[in-house]
């Protein structure tokens, strides 16, 4: 049983972000990390590996060459091998193009479970897992708080409007998990050393059987404007007053805005 975890390299949450003149995110200038939600997917896969439920964990990323660093970091947490799909034609890829490329690469890697994070920090569409499943003609199990594998089936525990459900589908599947699967492990020094010797393949677009024309220059959408958010009025502060006074002032503030 084999899991391939799809991870995306994203700008660090705290890094200053810039847009280039052609309105693309300037990925070269920002500190890059593994998309935090993908670390939970890695953790879920490694827990199943630790438990002996799966016998192989690999990683897949699509991005610039620099994204190889994210794959090395994942390998330092555990797992055997990694694949990076990188191609100049993929700069500015949107979720549709990303899904097309990942789907083609996953067809070659043929895992029992293609596991993803629930969303990427920068795009936040949560569309890639479902679009990959659609293209690969496989069931989708999304937003799992836990993934279980048994009897040729994958199951996820997923929040319902009031409680939770277990949802099942026959393998192979595409699945995504949330930050409820458990806190991601840290890479040990030993893991970091071992990761340097693990195989990391680099594939071009042609290697996964796609051409630049198939991907319409990487996107069906384009950004026509990027700007800072509207400035908010400055924060009003209430401090160094008694609790009675604070309560009265909050109530006044609410009343002035017709909120009570």
């Amino acid at each position, binding site marked *: 049983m084999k899991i391939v975890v799809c991870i995306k390299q994203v700008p660090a949450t705290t890094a200053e972000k810039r847009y280039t003149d052609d309105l693309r995110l300037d990925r070269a200038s920002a500190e890059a990390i593994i998309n935090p939600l993908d670390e939970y997917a890695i953790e879920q896969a490694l827990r199943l590996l630790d438990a002996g439920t799966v016998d192989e964990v690999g990683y897949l990323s699509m991005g610039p060459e620099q994204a190889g660093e994210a794959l090395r970091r994942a390998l330092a947490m555990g797992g055997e091998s990694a694949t990076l799909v990188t191609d100049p034609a993929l700069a500015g890829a949107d979720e549709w193009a990303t*899904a097309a490329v990942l789907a083609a690469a996953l067809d070659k890697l043929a895992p029992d479970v293609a596991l993803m994070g629930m969303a990427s920090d920068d795009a936040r569409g949560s569309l890639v897992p479902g679009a990959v499943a659609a293209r690969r003609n496989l069931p989708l199990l*999304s937003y799992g708080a836990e993934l279980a594998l048994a009897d040729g089936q994958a199951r996820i525990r997923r929040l319902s409007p009031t409680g939770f459900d277990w949802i099942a*589908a026959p393998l192979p599947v595409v699945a995504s998990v949330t930050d409820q699967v458990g806190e991601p492990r840290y890479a040990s020094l030993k893991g970091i050393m071992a990761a340097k010797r693990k195989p990391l393949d680099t594939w071009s677009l042609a290697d996964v059987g796609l051409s630049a024309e198939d991907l319409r220059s990487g996107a*069906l959408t384009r950004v026509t404007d990027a700007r*800072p958010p509207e400035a908010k009025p400055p924060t*009003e*502060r209430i401090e160094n*007053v008694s609790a009675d006074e604070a*309560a009265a002032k909050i109530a006044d503030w609410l009343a002035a805005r017709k909120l009570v």
Partner: protein
Amino acid sequence: MSNDIFFLAEFADGAPQRSALELAAGATELAAASGGNVVALAYGPGAGDGAAGLGAHGVARAIVLRDDAAPAITAGPAAVEAVRAASPLAVLAPATPNGRDLAAALVGLADLPAFGPVRAVRVVDGIVETEQATLQGSVVTTSRPVDGAPQPSVVLVLANTFTPTEAGSGTAEVSRAEASDHPFTLATIVESHPADAAVVNLEEATVIVAGGRGIGSAEGFGQLDELAAALGGAVGASRAAADAGWVPYQLQIGQTGKVVKPALYIGLGISGAIQHRVGMQTAEHVIAVNKDPDAPIGEFADLFVVGDLFQIVPKLTAEIRRRKG
């Protein structure tokens, strides 16, 4: 190709969810600009019985994708058939897990441009234009489909982007979608564990009183219930409070919880981490009570009260009750 505006309408127990009514209002607005009709793609338990009622909200036609309790993604193949047949200008989807799953099915199966989650969408000179806050809210972008992109544009819409209209008297013409058998239909619910107590749908609340690690215990949330009741609102939480088991995860606000946009959000004992902020920063009014004068939430709240919540909250509740009479 048509100028029609489709939207995903989720049902539960035969009634449209608030997201369906919001998107009906949004689709009506867009259709007025595009010169097309409003068509609902209805799914979820009781969608078949309830779909005609969407006519009261300006919906001309409703196509029922599925109306059983199966996972929403099982309606994906039918949604694709309906959209392929009509080639509308746009499909609006709620930016909820179910809405995103169905939107992803459309994007992956029909090769469509996707936008969102957006905080505004409009039709300008026949072209779909969206507005999105990205990169943890640090940048606002405007996007459009590339020239010659296939139709429709699939747009994920955040809760409370549109306001539902008052119900009128119309009836939507209802049809059933063609069945279709992509493996998406193989997902089944094998166990269901509803909670003992009802959990509110936070996305519907206009006032939210949210508690964080500073609340300290499940019992501590009792005073939030009282303040919320006095204000006619609902209780929400940070992930720290949900992780601690003080409240169910359904009440979590933030990147991996609900994205809410109430008229009033009151954060109590919440530091305002970026992952929490992205779930509530579009609230119209934000009040925070925190004993740390340097808490990050103090940098973006409209009113920041430095003090001990255990002292202030009961007094505030009493004061609001007194003023309401």
